Structure formats: structure tokens, C-alpha cells
């Protein structure tokens, strides 16, 4: 099998599939010290759709996700090569401040991580930080809107001054999503957002992701292939630091073109 031909194949395919790419990644290599975590990744993320990244543990999907808002900067001896651009602007080499980038590319983590502050202060953290609201009324409005969009408003509106850490796991994760959308990002990255939640809370988050797609571009890392199939329009399969295959979710799950993809989605390995 010719690897180069394969690459050609899905690169063209991804370009046809996403008419308006929000994020483009070209020749992305990531190293942790001497070991290479990602090998020459080419991937487009389409605007206002959900792209899911799947693959066995340690395949580099979370690493790729963290490249998109430069969260890897925090990790010592992590180096990123190649070109990743958001709306055509290079994230790494154009002098773009990672702090401003992260205001445009929000992130939700694997384990719910609300601040040990009140529910209100959790949501208000971003708007206060970036000064995007000018008075208390606007802030109240922003908090309510974010909580409503995250489907949490009805559950917490009477206890906004209670600590966010006192909510249930699923509520905490929706609080984190509300916190992320409170700064009006363009892209939301989700790193296995449901892996610490029970099926009911998971269903709620998935429903929420579907609604959020209208306003935001979403990239989600997941271990659950059912989840990828349910929530995403496009799916990318990573294996051992390589992007093996990317395409329409329906197509990828029904007729995978690569043997490794076939093997993973049918449960033969991973």
C-alpha cells in the first residue's frame, strides 16, 4: 500500500468536504523532548461543524487538540513544528499572543475543573478578565446567557452564589462549557468531555454539543466511537502519532478506507 497516495487521497477529500476551513494544520510535528508525538499531520477543521478525533490511547489526538490553542506551551520541553492557522493567521509564527488566541479558542477538559468559586464567579471569570462587559447588568446578562446556552440555567439560577464545586459531575462539566462560551470564542475544543460522566449526563452534553454547533466550531476528542458517530459531522482517526484517515463521519464509520481504521472501529485493536 502506498502511504503517499493515501495521504493525497484524504487531503483532497478533506478539502472537498470542508468548503470553509476554520483551522488548517499542515505538516504538524510535535515532540516531547526527543520522542515524537505527532507526525506530519494535515487536517482541516470546518467552520460550524463538529470534528471528532478518535484513536487508541497515546495516539496523539489530545496533543493535537492542545496545539490548536497552544496549551502545549505550558508543558516543558514540548516543541511544535509546522503550520497551524486560524482564519488564515498562523498561530505559532505570526507573533499572535497565545493569551488572545485562547480567548478565541476555548477549551473544555476531560475532568470537570470548575474554580473553587461561586457558580456566578466561574462564568464571570472570562468576561471580567477580558473586560468584555462594562457593567454589572451586562455581566449578569452574560452569565445568564452562557448558562442558558449550556442548559444549566434552570438548575442553578437560584444558587448562583453557591460554589461551583458543589454541583454534580455532569453539572460541573456543563458549568465548564458555560464558562468557556462566556467569552464568545469562535472554536471550542473538548478533550474527552464525557469520560468522567454517567450516561445521562453524557447524553445531555452531547445534545448540548449539537446545539452549540450553530454558533461555534467544535473539535472533540473522544474514546467512544458511538459518541463520535452521534455528535460529529467529520471524524479523524489517529494512530501512533499519525493521522490515518479523515472524512465524513458517516462515510468513515461505514466504509473506512484504511485497514487500521477498519480494525479500530470494528474493535480488533485499540
Amino acid at each position, binding site marked *: 500500500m502506498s502511504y503517499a497516495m493515501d495521504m493525497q487521497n484524504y487531503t483532497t477529500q478533506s478539502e472537498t468536504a470542508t468548503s470553509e476551513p476554520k483551522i488548517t494544520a499542515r505538516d504538524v510535528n510535535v515532540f516531547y523532548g526527543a520522542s515524537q508525538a505527532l507526525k506530519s499531520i494535515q487536517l482541516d477543521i470546518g467552520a460550524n461543524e463538529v470534528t471528532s478525533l478518535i484513536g487508541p490511547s497515546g495516539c496523539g489526538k489530545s496533543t493535537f487538540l492542545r496545539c490548536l490553542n497552544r496549551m502545549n506551551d505550558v508543558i516543558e520541553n514540548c516543541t511544535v513544528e509546522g503550520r497551524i492557522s486560524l482564519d488564515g493567521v498562523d498561530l505559532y509564527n505570526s507573533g499572535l499572543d497565545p493569551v488572545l488566541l485562547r480567548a478565541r479558542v476555548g477549551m473544555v477538559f476531560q475532568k470537570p475543573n470548575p*474554580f473553587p468559586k461561586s457558580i456566578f464567579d466561574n462564568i464571570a471569570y472570562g468576561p471580567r*478578565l477580558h473586560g468584555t462587559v462594562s457593567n454589572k447588568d451586562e455581566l449578569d446578562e452574560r452569565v445568564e446567557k452562557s448558562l442558558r446556552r449550556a442548559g444549566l440555567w434552570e438548575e442553578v439560577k437560584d444558587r448562583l452564589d453557591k460554589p461551583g464545586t458543589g454541583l454534580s459531575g455532569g453539572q460541573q462539566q456543563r458549568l465548564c462549557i458555560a464558562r468557556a462560551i462566556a*467569552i464568545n470564542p469562535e472554536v471550542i475544543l473538548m478533550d474527552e468531555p464525557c469520560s468522567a460522566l454517567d450516561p445521562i449526563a453524557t447524553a445531555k452534553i452531547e445534545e448540548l454539543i449539537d446545539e452549540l454547533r450553530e454558533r461555534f466550531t467544535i473539535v472533540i476528542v473522544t474514546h467512544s466511537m458511538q459518541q463520535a458517530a452521534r455528535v460529529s459531522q467529520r471524524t479523524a482517526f489517529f494512530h501512533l502519532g499519525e493521522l490515518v484517515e479523515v472524512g465524513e463521519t458517516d462515510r468513515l464509520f461505514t466504509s473506512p478506507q484504511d485497514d487500521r481504521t477498519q480494525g479500530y472501529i470494528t474493535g480488533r485493536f485499540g
Partner: protein
Amino acid sequence: MEQLALFFALLFLTVLGFILGKGRAVALSGHSDQPLHSRLPYYGLYTALWCGLPSLLIMAGWMIFEPQIAEMLVASQLRDSDASITPDQLTLYINDVVNLASGGILSREPDAALLSAADNYSLFRQISYFAMAVVAIAFSLLALFTSLKKINPALRARNQVEKVVSIIMMISSLIAILTTVGIVFSLIFETLRFFDKVPFFDFLFGTHWSPQTALRSDQVGGSGSFGAIPLFAGTMLITFICMVVAIPVGLLSAIYMSEYAGKKFRAFAKPVLEVLAGIPTVVYGFFAALTVAPFFRESGTLLGLSVSSESALAAGMVMGIMIIPFISSLSDDVMNSVPQSLRDASYAMGATKSETITKVIIPAALPGIVGAVLLAMSRAIGETMIVVMAAGLAANLTANPLEAVTTVTVQIVTLLVGDQEFDSAKTLAAFALGLLLFVVTLVMNVVALKVVRKYREKYD
């Protein structure tokens, strides 16, 4: 000496118990087809504990109570012969008897009655010692045989040994608590005696401290006024100066070490900072008295200020430096234990490092930091040596840090140094001061512990 011999005899029996117990278990495991409940050494320990512990307890109890019983016997004999004796004379007489029996110094020439009483006393002690030895060894032997007999495959030797060990551990932890209680009581009784001589409110709210009392009625001076306010004001002033130095420096160094410093610098700086906490306070005292205080005096002179050569400022500054490691090291640990996930959350919201520190990490770590500050503060309040050497002894009621002040602990030391009679208000005042100081620091420690406990519940 004789007690030591008995102790070694019991020790020997204990070791013997271990060997025999284990040997019996080994024999059982060879013959019996039922598997033993516990592993072999536990049977040895089981027997050894039975041989050693109860006998040692008997011995300890005997040694605590026996001298008192002996003295009571002497006392009752004496009361029989002379009913008019006063309690003071009785104590003196018993002392003489005990001293004569053990070859000590007497308060008078021994007479026949005293000699016979001493003979009776030493006879009683000897009989009692033999009785103790017999009882202890007999009990030990008895325990050896019964516990050897009890050893069978179903005996839960491990559970019983572990129970005994856990009881020993519990007693060890009780010792600290009982000591605290003992300290409080020893202070309370002397303090009550002090308040017999000096009114409670004069002590608590008096603004003049001059503890010299006249020993004889014709002595001049030494009015003896015991107002504790200047002392506590001095303590608070020095503590305040100390915290003004230590809190900012300690916190900033903690923030630097936990958030900014590289691993190498941290690995080097943290132990070095902690060395600061290990320097004896007397050495800090030298530094304060010989370097810092003259420096302040001279810079004060240049500025036209009169700074006394012993000043609250010098003592407070040096004390502040001394407690920097308390604040920085504890706060550093607390900030380090703020989960990485919270930092990630903040960075992912587009916060800079300094915004993350001030808005997320410090608020999350605040209870722990407050705990560290309170612990450091109670340390500062209790500090004596630096103040003695650098702040002086004059009990001035002043808020001027350039003057000499004194603190509670310093006064306690000066009140109790040298020969003392324990019925004068001067000496007893030390206990009242000590108790008050104890209460103040106790309250602060309780608050600190509460805050720290609250911090523990903060995450998850």
C-alpha cells in the same frame, strides 16, 4: 539498682516467652492438620506480650505508689505517738526519716525515735521490694504457662497482638495531650495564687508594669504594679513589625518558587530557605543586637531621629526574617497543591500567568496561606531570645517602634531567672503571664487549624 535487676529478669522472661511461644507454634504446625490462624512470629509475640507487659505494669504501679504508702505508714506511726504534730512538722519529719534511711542530709541530730522510724521505713521498703519482685516474676511465669497452653491453631494471635500494639500507639498519642493538660493545670494553680495577691483586673488592664516588690516592710521602692498591658502592647508591636516584614517577603518568595522558578532553582532555594528556620534564635539575637540595632541607631542619627540602641524595630525586623521560611515554605506547598487542572482552566480562558496566580491560585490557596501566617504569628508571639537581646527590658507603653519595649515572654524569663521565692507576687506574675500568653497562642492555633481543615475540604 534492684529495680534494674528485676527489669532485666522480666526482659529475659519476655524473650523466653517469644522463643517458647514461637517454638510451640512451630511444633503445632508440624503436627496439627488444621492450619494456624496467624503466621508463626505472632504466636511468639503473643506469649512475649503476656509475659512482659502485665508484670512491667505491676512493677511501674508499685514503684509509683509504694513510697507514698511507706510514708503514710511513717506518718501514722508518728501521729499515734504525738497527736499534736502540725502538718509542716510532719512533712519535715518524714523527710528526715527518708533521708536517714537513704543516707541523706538531715535537718537535725537523729534521736532514738527517728532512728527506729527510719529502720522501720527501710525494712518496709525492703519487704515491699521483695514482694514486688515475687509478684511480678510469678505473674510473668504464670502468664508464660497459660499463654503457651492457649496456643492452638484457632488462636487469633495476630489480632490480639495488633490490638495491644494499637493500644500502645494510642497511649503514645495521649501523652502529648496529657502533657498539654498538665501544663495548663500547673499554670492555673500558680495563677490563682497570683490573683489572691493582685486583683485580676489590675493585671489585665493595668498600664504600668514594675514587678519589683518590697521583701521587707522597711525596703524603699518596688511599688510592685502588675499591669500586663505594656507587655502585651510590646508583644503586639514587635509581632506587627515582624509580620510586616515576613508576610510580603514570604508570600512573594512562595509565589516565585511555586509558579515562576525553574526546577533547579527551586531544588536549591527551598532547602536553603528552610535552613533559615533551623538557625537557633539566640544566633538571630546576636545578629539583631550587634548588627541590625546599631545600624538602625546610626541611620536614625543621620536622619535626626533618636533611635534607642535597643528598639522594637530591630527585634521585629530580625524576627520577621526568622519566620520568613515558615510563611514561604508552607505557602509554597499550599500553592503547589492547587491542582494543575485549575491552572489549565484559567490558561484556557485566555488568562496570563499573573492573572492566573492572583485570580485562581492565591484565592484557592488562601485558607492555607492564612493558616501559614497564623502559625508564623504564634511563633513570633512566643519568641523570646531575639527580643531579650535586641528590644530591651523596659516596659514602655508606646507605639513608637524606635523605642525599647519588652514582651510577655521576656518578662517571664526575667521574673524567673535567679533565686526565687514562690510566694511573692513577682514570681507568681510569671505564671499569670504565661497562662495568658498560652491562651492567646492557643486561640490563634485553633483558628489556624480550623482554617487549614477548611482548606482540605476545598477540592473534590
